[in-house]
Each structure stands twice: as structure tokens, then as C-alpha cells.
């Protein structure tokens, strides 16, 4: 188990894709301290910015656990591309957490910046706090979003969560801002509380479940029926009535948008189309 503690308050963004169990695995403490990072436009080594300690010795074959204690909200790309192992962060984290990760687990006890789990392919990210915009969304311009794995957020998320998602599961136990599941092509997004405007806009396939209030459903969605329960995943089935909408018809889509009936009495006029 390796522990990283910031030695000072960071003022400018730090670009540190090396903070990942996959990179640190099998390296000595001294080697870890010498890994290259960028602080703004200056090249540094990890040892300049973090106190690196080994808290528990494990054999090389075991998956590495990495603990980060303190505010790393300026540090980007933590856990990017990780394949196995675990990262536990006690504090806030910066942008691009777990970008393109393929396996392993990241747990954050704090808030996370934008593009968390961007284009992720596998593994698990658990966030006990709020997340900024573009959760699991790909980089601007790209059409291939999250393609596997699970993201669980216990707080609120920003805009465009799960944009261009292809596969996998995102559970949000708080509120979501605009454009949840934008241009989604597969997978499942569950928002327990309220969702902002333009939910599931341009979705082609997949499932979006909104447990709270939603101001309106886009006119390019058509109502398909009322379901008495909705399955989020193997462990979670919500037993309550949901409106089922199909769309986005503007994209010839056949995605499913479930919206809670209880929390959205203003949508009851859709029932006359059934």
C-alpha cells in the first residue's frame, strides 16, 4: 500500500497520469518519487509535490492500493488508463479521474472535477461527493463514450453526464444537470433525484431512469407505456410506477427514458396518448 500526501497547496494544474496503480506497480519508493509530472508548464518529479510513503508491504504479485490524503483538486488524470489495483482518495480530485480506465477500483471521499471516468472501459469508480460536468463523457469532438464498467456517485453531477455512452452503468444518487445521457448509444444511467433540461437528448439506444422530477420530456420522445417497476441492475429494482418514453426520434433512436410517475404529476397529460 502506497500513500501520497501533497506537500503543499497546489496553485496551478498538475498533469499526473503516472498516479495510477498500474504505473506504480513493482516500483520502489525512490523510483516512484522520480516519476515525471507537469506543474503548469514546469516539469517536476512526483517527489517534489507529494510525500510518498509505503504503509504496508505486500508481495509484488498483489494488486497495489494507492491512498491519496489531502486536496488534489488541481491534479488531473489520476488513475488514467489503470488496469487493476485500487485508488482511495480522501479529499477533492481534479479533472479526468480514471480516464480510459480498464479495470480496478477508484474510491473518492470528496468532490471530483470534470470528465471523471471519461471514455472508461471497465472497472469501478465510487464517488462520495459531487462531480463536475461531463461524467464519463468522451473528450470534445469524439463520438465514443464510456464502453464498460460502473460509476456510482452519491452526490450531484454536472452537465452531460454519460454523453455518448455505449455500455456500462452510471448510478447517480443525487441530482443531475442538463443533458444527462446526451447522444447515448447503450448502457444504463440512473438518476435518483431530479434531472435538468434536455434529458437524453439525441439518444439512440440504452436506458435512462429518472427517479425525481424532470421539467419536461423533449418533444422528440414518444410515450410508450407505464411500468410498475424498473430494473437498474441485478441488485437494484425500483418498485414504483414509471412513464416509459422512446426516443430520440429526431435521431431515429429507440432508447428508453423512464420517468417517475409520482414525482412528475405535470407529465400526466401524456397518459391520454396511451
Amino acid at each position, binding site marked *: 500500500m502506497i500513500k501520497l500526501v501533497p506537500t503543499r497547496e497546489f496553485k496551478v494544474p498538475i498533469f499526473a497520469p503516472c498516479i495510477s496503480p498500474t504505473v506504480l506497480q513493482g516500483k520502489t519508493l525512490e523510483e516512484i518519487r522520480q516519476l515525471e509530472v507537469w506543474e503548469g508548464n514546469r516539469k517536476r518529479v512526483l517527489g517534489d509535490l507529494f510525500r510518498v510513503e509505503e504503509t504496508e508491504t505486500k508481495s509484488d504479485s498483489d494488486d497495489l492500493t494507492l491512498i491519496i490524503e489531502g486536496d488534489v483538486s488541481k491534479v488531473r488524470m489520476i488513475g488514467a488508463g489503470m488496469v487493476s489495483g485500487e485508488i482511495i482518495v480522501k479529499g477533492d480530485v481534479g479533472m479526468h479521474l480514471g480516464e480510459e480506465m480498464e479495470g480496478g477500483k477508484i474510491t473518492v471521499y470528496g468532490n471530483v472535477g470534470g470528465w471523471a471516468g471519461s471514455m472508461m472501459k471497465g472497472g469501478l469508480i465510487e464517488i462520495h461527493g459531487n462531480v463536475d460536468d461531463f461524467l464519463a463523457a*468522451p*473528450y470534445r*469532438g*469524439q*463520438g465514443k463514450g464510456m464502453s464498460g464498467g460502473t460509476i456510482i456517485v452519491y452526490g450531484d453531477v454536472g452537465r452531460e453526464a454519460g454523453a455518448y455512452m455505449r455500455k456500462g452503468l452510471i448510478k447517480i444518487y443525487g441530482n443531475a444537470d442538463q443533458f444527462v445521457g446526451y447522444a447515448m448509444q447503450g448502457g444504463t444511467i440512473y438518476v435518483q433525484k431530479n434531472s435538468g433540461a434536455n434529458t437524453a437528448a439525441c439518444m439512440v439506444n440504452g436506458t435512462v431512469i429518472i427517479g425525481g422530477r424532470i421539467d419536461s420530456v423533449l418533444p422528440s420522445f414518444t410515450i410508450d407505456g407505464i411500468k410498475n417497476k424498473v430494473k437498474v441492475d441485478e441488485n437494484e429494482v425500483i418498485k414504483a410506477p414509471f412513464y416509459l418514453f422512446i426516443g430520440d426520434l429526431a435521431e431515429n433512436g429507440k432508447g428508453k427514458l423512464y420517468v417517475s410517475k409520482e414525482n412528475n404529476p405535470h407529465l400526466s397529460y401524456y397518459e391520454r396518448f396511451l
Partner: protein
Amino acid sequence: MELLIKNGYVFDPINGINGEKMDIAVKDGKIVEEVNEHRAKVIDATGMTVMPGGIDIHSHIAGGKVNAGRLLRPEDHFKDVERKTAITRSGVGYSIPSTFTTGYRYARMGWTTVMDPAMPPLEAKHTHEELSDTPIIDKASYPLLGDWWFVLEYLRDGNIEECARHVAWMIKVTKGYAIKLVNPGGLETWGFGRNVKSIDDPVPYFNVTPREIIRGLCRVNKLLHLPHTIHVHTNNLGVPGNYQTTLDTMKCVEDLAEDNKPVIHITHVQFCAFKGEDWRTLHSGAEDIAKYINSHNHVTIDMGQVVFTDTTTMTADGPFQFTLYMLSGNKWVNHDVETETSSGIVPFHYKPKNAVHATQWSIGLELALLIKDPWKVMVTTDHPNAGPFIAYPKIISWLMSRKAREATMKKISEKAKKRSLLPSIDRELSLYEIAVLTRAAQAKALGLENKGHLGVGADADIAIYNINPETLNPSTDYTLIERAFQRAAYTIKGGDVVVKDGEVIAHKFGATMWVNVKLCEPCEIEVDRDMQKRFKEYWTVEYENYPVTDHYLRVSHPITVKADV
């Protein structure tokens, strides 16, 4: 400054030098007979291959549409970043690199002259600003003239001489180099929401056919004595069965050829050598085209070789790009329709397992290998349409080694293998032939007298590669060939060593070449007056603001020709 390149194996096809061990002397940016060995800087090229600097006859590197492509594709750049060094500026790649990166990457491969093949006249200033910011390489741009209203009008009326005077005016004010035709007639038809289907399909309103446009501009080109022939992107590009249109296009100017000299350059022929009824039955038409070119001398072509990668297609062919957008469902830009041409941009991923893409890959190589005379076919990827230009080393290795082709063929669609002749072709090109395909033939086709060779008086644009032709067998060591061409041991531009061991070690700006067409004096004044009048009627800009003035060109290199009109 004096420079002496000693003991290299020199490949200089224009002067007939095939791997001879000799010294090359350089003084003041030109190749000279000899220099003082004690004073000159000596480069020991023992065991290395020395060639003239590479020339690219067709590569979209600058202009409004290229820049729109950059904006459309942030995802193309963020994984391919070039950090700044003490000498070079920072930049991004990949399929549409920034201007600085474009210059550096060409130089690293040993290429020193690049032609941007599609400049909408209204966006000439933008194109030249970007060309001026492209370091190291020399460059030029071809204005798109095949669908200009006045060309269509004069050709409809059969007034070739008046057409020639206006084309000359346009080439001069846009600081262009050659006449470019893209889907002649089709772009104007695109303005009406349609496309032309064959070279005898009339353009709406103007009632002139692509055949008349191609023949007309071919005659205009001869009247103006431009250094290059007309540069043609055929009608029906990217449509199954279009090899027939390509043959028709080549045949339609057959009678205009004199003294066995080429009169037409058909570009990225891979995209217009499709046989078959539809996409499912698509197969290679390269054999028919190669057969025609083998028996005729009035045509030169370039390959437009596909490489399997994620790239960006961008042509002035708006209707074709619209079809591609509908096929791929990808994002797109419909650009330049307000100018004298049109254009479109669609990101595209060529996949080896896709039968159509793999067939396209085969067609390009088939063309280069089936055409017997290497002076008639040139290496291009139509950058970035069929792949970025950084793939040239890979293409060279495919051309030089059957084994390299077989290695790629193992990964491609089984269907595609049956749809082309490529698996049965044994031909492997020699280093000498590669020097023709990548340098000499291009210089000859472009009429660049001082480039593409290492004779006395030529520009000192030289590439030195880490290839020992006596010990290296390209047929088996194709990965070494590829690596050597990726990172030139030395690139010398205008007598200065700019690249060493694949790294840029000096920064300089190359020249922008343009053709200054001299008409007879009264004609010049007449045309000017006529254009002034027309600007009031037709353009959104003032006549005075239209021409590319000298200060847009960082290093201006005019080539003066005297026209017959």
C-alpha cells in the same frame, strides 16, 4: 555557406544516376560542381542513400477547408501533441496537423516541397497566410477554377482565348500555381442541390458539360504555358463503377496531346477506380486504368493510397462529401459553397476488415505496381483524405516489398483479396523507382526545373536516408526501409541542414511559388477593367481587396511565364 555530402549512394533519376557513389557539393543554396573541401561543412554519407528532397504533388495542408477540419476535430489533436523545443514551435497532429507541425513532419521524412491542391479563390488570402506559416518546406497552391462562373460562361460560348485571359488573371491575383478542376461542373450543380452523373451531363443554367470544361481548360493551360498540366479530380469520385468516368476523362483530352507530353494529371485515382454496381459488388478497376495509362503518354496520375487509420476526408467535392456523410453518419461540414467552388469535410476511419476500405487499399497499390512507367504515377495519400502524409514511409515499404504487402494482407477482409489483383502482383520497386515516384516524377509533372534532381544549378533540397543499398534488402527488411524514411538522417533545405537523425535542428521558412502569367499588354488592361466591372455585380468583396498582395507571402518565389494570348 558551403556544404559537401561525401560518399553517399546517390539516386537522381532526372540525371539518370542510379545508386552511384559520389559527392554532392552545395554553395549558396544551390548544387554546384565542387566546393573547397577545407572550407565547406562536410557530411559523411558513407553507407547512406542520397536523394533529392521529396515532393508532394497533392496534399491539403492549408486553407479555409483545412482549418474548418481542424476546428471540427478536436479529438484528432489531443492525443498527438508536439511539445515546443528550443528550435521548433509546439503544435498538434494528427490527420490535420497545425501549420508548424505540418512543416516539421514533412522535413523529418525528407520532403521539401509540397503542393496544396485546392484553394477557393475567395479564400486565397487565408490559404497563403497558412502556407506562409508552414516552415521549412517550399509550397504552392492550385486555385479551383473548374466551376468558376466566368470559365463556364466563356466555355459555353466557345471563347477559349477570353477564358484563358480570365484564368490568367485569377492565377495571378490568387498567387496560384496550376489550374485545379474538382468534379468539373459538379460543384456548380451542387449549388442547385444536385450532381452531374457523367462527363456529358450538362450543368444547370450554364448548359456546359464536364467534357467541355476539361477540354476547354486543357487548351487554356496550353495557351498560358503553365508549368503544370491541368490537375483533375474526376466526376463521380467515390461512386462504384466510376472507373469508366476516369477513362472517359483521360480519353477526352487524348487529341490535345503533343510530342508525347502529358496534358492532364488525374489525382488520387484510387478514389475513381471503382468497378461494380454498388458498394456490395465493388471491386478494383485499377487494371483497366493501368492498361490505358500504359498505352498512352498524355496522362500522369497520383495514387491517393489508403492507409488503415482514423483520418479526415476533405475535398472541394461538396456533393461527394455529402454522400460520404450520409454513408458514414458521421459529423460533417458543408464548406465554401459561398465561394467560387464548394467543399465538405467528414471524419472517416478506414478499417482493414471492411471489404470496401480494404479494396480501396488494394487499388492504390495496384495502380502504382501495374503502371509500368514510374514517371506516370506518384506517391500520395491525398493527405488527409486517404490517410495522413506521415504514412508515406509505410507506402514506400509496401511498394518495395511483396512481404510487406502480404503482412498487411493477412489482416484485411477476405472478400477484398478476391476483388483485386494485388495478391498476384510480384513487382517490387527499387530505390531508384521510389526516387522517381516520390520526387523526380513529381518535379517533372509540376514543371519544377530546379527541384527533384541533384544536377548542377538545382536547389539544394536534399534528403539523406540511413539506407545502405548494398547491404539492405528492401524486400525482406521492409521495416528498416519504413523506419529510414520516417526519420531522415539529414534533410537539407536550400543548402541548410534542417533535420538530423529525424529531429528538426534548424528553423527556416521555405518559399511560396506562384505563377506570374504575362498576357499581352492591352489584354492585361482589358481583363482588369472587365473584372472591375464584374466585381460590382457578382462579389461580396471589393475588387481592391481581392488580390493576394505581396506581403501575404513570407518568401515569394514568382515563376514568370509568357502566355500566347
